[in-house]
């Protein structure tokens, strides 16, 4: 049994595997299948200041090797999260990353401030949701705005702050450097890629929102490339995600420079995916006689 524990900006994880925000709700539905303490952490459903009803259905479409979603940040609001969801999650032995979002930098800061008095371990600031008209991706596609929202949230919280980046940009390294300079303790990437499908029988987009975020195995090589570029551009840790569906994928993303790995769409195909990936990670390390998962982080030898 290899040592799977990692440390991301001062927070200890028993293993580096974390269900990504949005696929896992607040954990209750999957606890029916496996104990949550098998996971390194959980990134909770993106939560805003007030309740959001989200977009009109259909919100889901299949794509070759993946899917599109346009949920639109449906969530019960931060107060409900703090009162009714967080206490339950805090009794589980895993790292809780509270994923937060907002329509304005001030709203993001207010949400972060509300979490200050809780025991939540980390804040993951979503500046990259492609499914909301205001805020969301707008913050994540512009260096100045990304820095501004990071700075305001940084002021509002003493918790370790992870900023989740959008891949729908010309240069993700520039955004990563901007949020690092503004006080982020880590970055996580990649959020979904903006995509679209059309039903050729009706001429209508499959998603009622017309466009949505693409995820799943098809986006994995883009995630590897972006994690590698960002890991080489910043000094803060990188949490990698995007199409990871096996232990081998997790290893690959860690070799590219990720200190921990989030698992998203793979959970829809195999609800046990995060637990299986932890086991596969261990098997790989044992088969190579590698004592600790930390020994593989950022070890890719570029040509």
């Amino acid at each position, binding site marked *: 049994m290899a040592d799977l524990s990692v440390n991301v900006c001062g927070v200890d994880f028993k293993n580096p595997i974390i269900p990504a925000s949005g696929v896992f709700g607040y954990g209750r539905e999957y606890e029916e*299948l496996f104990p949550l303490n098998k996971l390194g952490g959980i990134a909770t459903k993106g939560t805003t200041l007030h309740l959001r009803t*989200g977009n009109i*259905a259909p*919100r*889901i479409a*299949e794509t070759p*090797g993946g899917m599109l*979603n346009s*949920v639109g940040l449906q969530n019960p609001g931060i107060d409900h999260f703090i009162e009714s969801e967080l206490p339950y999650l805090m009794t589980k032995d895993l790292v809780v990353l509270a994923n937060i979002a907002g329509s304005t930098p001030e709203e993001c800061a207010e949400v972060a401030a509300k979490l200050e008095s809780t025991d939540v371990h980390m804040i993951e600031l979503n500046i990259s949701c492609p499914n909301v008209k205001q805020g969301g991706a707008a913050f994540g596609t512009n260096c100045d705005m990304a820095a501004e929202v990071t700075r305001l949230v940084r002021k509002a919280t003493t918790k370790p702050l992870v900023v989740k980046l959008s891949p729908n940009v010309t240069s993700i390294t520039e955004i990563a450097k901007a949020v690092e300079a503004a006080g982020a303790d880590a970055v996580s990437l990649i959020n979904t890629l903006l995509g679209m499908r059309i039903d050729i029988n009706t001429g209508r987009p499959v998603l009622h929102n017309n466009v949505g975020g693409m995820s799943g*195995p098809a986006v994995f090589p883009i995630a590897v490339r972006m994690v590698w570029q960002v890991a080489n551009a910043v000094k803060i840790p990188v949490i990698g995600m995007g199409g990871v569906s096996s232990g081998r994928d997790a290893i690959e993303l860690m070799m590219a420079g990720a200190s921990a790995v989030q698992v998203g769409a793979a959970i829809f195909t195999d609800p046990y995916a995060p637990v299986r990936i932890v086991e596969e990670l261990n098997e790989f390390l044992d088969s190579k006689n590698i004592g600790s998962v930390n020994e593989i982080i950022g070890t890719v030898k570029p040509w």
Partner: protein
Amino acid sequence: MKYTQGKFIITEKTAIAREIYSFTISCPDVAAVASPGQFVHIRANGFTLRRPISICGIDKEKGTLRIVFEVRGEGTAEIAKLNKGDLIDMLAPLGHGFTVDESYSKVILIGGGIGTPPMLPLAKIYGNKATVITGFRNASAVILQDDIKKTGAEAVLCTDDGSAGIHGFVTQPFTELAEKGGIDAVYACGPSPMLKAVSKLCIDKGIRCEISLEERMACGIGACLGCACRTKRSDEEYFAHVCKDGPVFKAEEVLW
């Protein structure tokens, strides 16, 4: 809610109409807790998203479930390739099913096309207290009529083109029955326009009605919030989720 995920043996496969298949699956633990109106979430090899398929039969003694599904696209075509003896990967049983009350003396079950299969477990429970009205495009699309008759329920068949049974939609014979009165409950599954019409009629006449909805779905268990459906609860609009809050809703809850 108690669900599991696993691979289960297909013990019987039959093609019951063009592009419509019936699988019997040995899954005692799932069958033991399954109820009418629930669904199973099936993995299609090579696809990211599972396919939700309603339960058409529950045999708790034999420990089997029956599903009947239509090949609608690439995913269901992949599932249809499975044969007797193969393993099928299911996350099941899922969702909130129909409210069954055996004290009812007269119920109407309405199935439109591939919405017919979830009516069969109800017909089995209600037997001769049930009238099952089903509608199909044409005679070649008709399914499950013998199964319905075997339950003791009365079967009323409609086709859009009149090639079998009554020439017309299910709402025709249903309206006539509703006029006569004495109906304790209506259960329906099928295309949206049909469900909308049935719901309206029941609400107008004050008949208890439950409908089973369909939506594009990802997780199947209420975590991802993909399958949203506009509903009304204590006069407040509420985005429910078909997989967990449904697929069965009270007619008056759904905002069309």
